[in-house]
Every structure is written in structure tokens, then in C-alpha cells.
């Protein structure tokens, strides 16, 4: 039988996440966290770890909950709905990399710390060329007697500063891309926060200068990093798409709520067709987009041949839809929507980052065109 819906358990997980985050992550917390040095909401982070969310998609044998990418996407959606700060998704990606390609020793060393929330992680792959392909990875890793020496710079690293563990994509030899686990505290690692418009996330630059790591830092085979990384980028795209869906749905709700109470010319502005039609157009874009997120998450686990295509479709669409929806939501609010005091700005700015993270809509549309052989 055709079944394209959430199971009872999945619905319960999403409901529980929504209730918890409504309580634990109000806009006041988002604003307060924005003023801290590392942008990490410590108590929220601890609660999420306690509930097992960090190991949501990790196998039970590794101490995780053994759930799938769809469940992860539902949590990301709820985090997007409240514009949650903190490096949840980056930590997920590094956890997924360890589960997929980590040696027994690497998994034993890092997974318990990651899953307990003690260690936060970040994926460092982009450089100043802003390329999401193997050619974009030029940070050099040279073999030494004890292991490797890394030299170069990574840009747009989400979750930095704040991450203790970095998964760094480097070039080994002329052709190969390899992945290295590097501690942010290692000698020669310099982390610099990047100023962005998004108040809810931290993005930084990571400079590696003569950073010496031993052999055990290599994740997977030498030169075998790209397939692992490509998979992480799809997962990241799905996570951000889900987050965008949650944010768009929330922005729409806020705009509709406001239109019902705000009076102009002696009646609620929501009774004007200009406002109604704007809201209806938002619904027509947001509501069906949910299916893209669900399918991309499902395909990631169960339809490997369609996973990249589905991830690109979801990321391209939700990138556009979130930005457009929150933009219209600001317009429906009028002047108050443009103020610092109004919370809508948190989502408006989050959408700016979501649109480009793990590839912007133009990138993913071209990738789809290539996959579908236009």
C-alpha cells in the first residue's frame, strides 16, 4: 500500500520536540544566546543531549537512538520553527561521518563525548572559492613520519567558534580528498568568528598552520574522503531544508496571527484581500514543500540512487520558499516587522544563511539539471 506519511512514533517525536522547544527555546533565549561569546545555549544543549537527540540517527550499538534521517529532519524542522541557536546540525554531520567511516578507535574516542553533548563538532570543508565540489578543497595535508601535517584555511565553518572537534576536508596528493579529525585546541589551529547577519548561528574561519596530527586522525581511507563528504553535504542540505520548512511555517503563522489583530481603517488588516492573497500564496508554497523534506530524508536512508536528487530538490525549493515567506511575513507586519524589537528579524536573518548553506538554490538547480541530464 502507498504510504507517504509519518508513523505514530514519528508524530509523537515531533510533538514532543515542539512542546519542549516552545518551553525551552523562546525568542528571549535566542536573543540572549546571540550576545554570548560562542553562541551556544548551554542548558538547551544539555537537554537535547539528555533526550538523545544528538545520537538520534546513530545506531543503538554506538549509544544512539537508532532512528533515521526522517526523525532527524523532524527535529531540525522544530529547531527551525523556534530559530534555535547552537551547532546541532554540524555536530550531527560529524557524528554521521564517524558512524559511517570512523575506525573502532575513533568511534570509541569521540562518539560517547559527542552524544553526551560534552563535545561539539563542526564540518570544515568550504574555502574562499566557495565551491561545493572536490576541486574546492585545496587545504594541504602532507605525510609526515608520525602522521600528517595540515596547512590552509577553511571559511564559512558553521558552529565555529564553539566546536571542540573539527572534521577537516584536505587535499592529499594531487587527486585525493581526505578527511581529518582535528581538535580545535591543537597547536597551529586558529579560529576566527565571521560576522554574519544571522544572529542565531555562528560561522567562522579556521586557519591551520603546520598542524601536526597523528595517523589516527585520518577518517576513512586516504583519498577516500569525497564520497563520505558528498553524503554529509546531502545530509546537511536536508537538515537545512527541514529547518527552513519549520522557519517558514512559523513566519507564516506569525504573519497570520498579526493580521487578525492589527487594525487599520477600523478593521483587521487580515480582512483585506491584498493581505489574504499574500498569506494564501505563502500557504501554497510552504504547505506542499513539507513533502519534499520528508521524501529527501526518507530517500537518504532508503533510496540511495535518488538521495542526492531529492536533497537538491528539497534544498533548492526550501531555500527559496523560506526566504520568500519570511520576506512576505515582514511585509504583512508593516513597519513593526522591520524593527529590531520584533522577533521576525530572527527568522529573516536565519533564512539568509539557510539559503546558501550547503549550496544555494542556483547551485542545486544546476545539480538537478545535471542529474536529470537536460
Amino acid at each position: 500500500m502507498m504510504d507517504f506519511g509519518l508513523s505514530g512514533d514519528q508524530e509523537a517525536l515531533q510533538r514532543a520536540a515542539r512542546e519542549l522547544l516552545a518551553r525551552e527555546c523562546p525568542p528571549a533565549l535566542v536573543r540572549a544566546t546571540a550576545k554570548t561569546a560562542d553562541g551556544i545555549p548551554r542548558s538547551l544543549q544539555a537537554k537535547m543531549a539528555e533526550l538523545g537527540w544528538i545520537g538520534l540517527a546513530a545506531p543503538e550499538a554506538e549509544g544512539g537512538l537508532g532512528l533515521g534521517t526522517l526523525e532527524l529532519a523532524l527535529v531540525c524542522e522544530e529547531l527551525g520553527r523556534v530559530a534555535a541557536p547552537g551547532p546541532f546540525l554540524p555536530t550531527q554531520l560529524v557524528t554521521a561521518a564517524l558512524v559511517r567511516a570512523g575506525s573502532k578507535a575513533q568511534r570509541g574516542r569521540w562518539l560517547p563525548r559527542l552524544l553526551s553533548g560534552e563535545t561539539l563538532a563542526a564540518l570544515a570543508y568550504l574555502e574562499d572559492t566557495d565551491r561545493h565540489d572536490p576541486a574546492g578543497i585545496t587545504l594541504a595535508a602532507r605525510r609526515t613520519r608520525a602522521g600528517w601535517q595540515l596547512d590552509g584555511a577553511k571559511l564559512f565553518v558553521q558552529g565555529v567558534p564553539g566546536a571542540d572537534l573539527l572534521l577537516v576536508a584536505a587535499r592529499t596528493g594531487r587527486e585525493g580528498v581526505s578527511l581529518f579529525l582535528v581538535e580545535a585546541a591543537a597547536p597551529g589551529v586558529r579560529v576566527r568568528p565571521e560576522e554574519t547577519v544571522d544572529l542565531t548561528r555562528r560561522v567562522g574561519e579556521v586557519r591551520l598552520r603546520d598542524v601536526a596530527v597523528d595517523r589516527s586522525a585520518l577518517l576513512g581511507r586516504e583519498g577516500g574522503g569525497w564520497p563520505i563528504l558528498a553524503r554529509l553535504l546531502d545530509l546537511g542540505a536536508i537538515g537545512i531544508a527541514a529547518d527552513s520548512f519549520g522557519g517558514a511555517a512559523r513566519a507564516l503563522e506569525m504573519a497570520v496571527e498579526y493580521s487578525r489583530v492589527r487594525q487599520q481603517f477600523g478593521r483587521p488588516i487580515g480582512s483585506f484581500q491584498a493581505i489574504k492573497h499574500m498569506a494564501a500564496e505563502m500557504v501554497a508554497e510552504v504547505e506542499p514543500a513539507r513533502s519534499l523534506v520528508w521524501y529527501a530524508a526518507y530517500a537518504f536512508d532508503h533510496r540511495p540512487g535518488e538521495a542526492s536528487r531529492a536533497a537538491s530538490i528539497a534544498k533548492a525549493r526550501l531555500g527559496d520558499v523560506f526566504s520568500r515567506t519570511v520576506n512576505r511575513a515582514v511585509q504583512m507586519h508593516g513597519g513593526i516587522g522591520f524593527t529590531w524589537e520584533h522577533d521576525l528579524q530572527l527568522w529573516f536573518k536565519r533564512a539568509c544563511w539557510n539559503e546558501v548553506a550547503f549550496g544555494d538554490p542556483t547551485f542545486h538547480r544546476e545539480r538537478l539539471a545535471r542529474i536529470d541530464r537536460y
Partner: protein
Amino acid sequence: MTGDAGFNEVFFEDVRVPRRNLVGELNNGWQIANATLAHERNMLGSTTRTQETFQRLVRLAQTQRRNGGPASRDPVVRQRLADLAIRVETMKLEAYRQLTDALRGRAPGIAASVNKLVTTELNHDIARAALEILGSYGPLDRRSAHVRDRGVWPLDFMFSLGLIIGGGTSQIQKNIIAERGLGMPKEAKPR
């Protein structure tokens, strides 16, 4: 507008019908008609034909030449095609989701209006993209010696505009979505 006669006006003058032809109860026709209209919206909002039309658009882009190569090599055309593909895929998957909801006995809400609004405009946009790819070949009539795809695209462009209007215009669907779906207040009655 298309030159076909399927669209018309029907006049009734002193038409007598037997009592047994009454559908449902007397004075209860609006509810029944509304249920039928929801089905009509879903029919107009079905993506089966849209998927097929989009595949024809891709084939057109691959064969029609622009600037010395297939149109599908042009980055702008590729973006356009991919965006349409994504919108088609959205409504296809959304139909699966709604079908699953229906099988589980959940109320569809204003889904039919969203389907109708989105899909009829998507159909029109696909035809519009074809005309742009066709350039000067676009407006050629089916009788023209140089016509492409037997002149189906300009016809489709017009026909799909009709379906944006028929079955309740896009503006009517937006009112339904806003008022019944979002619970936004009704418009003030003219004094």
C-alpha cells in the same frame, strides 16, 4: 480563446424536470455542489498531466536550438527547467502525502484549493517556458510548415490560462485558503 467549442454558456428557459431528478434534498444543493467543486479542483490540480507535459518540455529544450546549440545547454534555460521540475516534483509528492492522509481518514482541509491554485499556474508556466524556448517558432499555428510539436504549445498556453480561471479563479482559491484554511476575517460587506 483557443478556437475550440468546449467552453460555452447554457441557457434554461421554462425547462421542466421530473421530481426524481432532484439530487439530494431540496435547498441543499450548495453543499453538494461544493463537494463536487472540491473534486473538480483536485482534478484540475492533478499532476499526472503536468508531469507528462514537463517531460515534453525537456525534450523540446533538448531538440530546439538556441544560439547554435540545444536550448537545454543554456544555463538560464537549465535553471528554468530545474525550477519547474522542482515545482512538479513538489506537487507529485504532495499528492502522495494527501492520498496517505485520505486513506488514514484525515480531513483534507483546503488542500484541494492549494492543489488547484498551484497546479493550474504551474501548467501555464510550463507552456510559457516552452514558448520562450521556441522563440520565433512559438506563435506558429499548427498549419504552419515550420511549426514545432504540431503547434501544441501556444494552444496549451491559452488552454492552461482558461484552467487558472475555470473551476474557481486563482483569486477565489486564495480567498478560500485564507478564510477557511487560515481563519482570516471575511471582507467587510460594501455599504
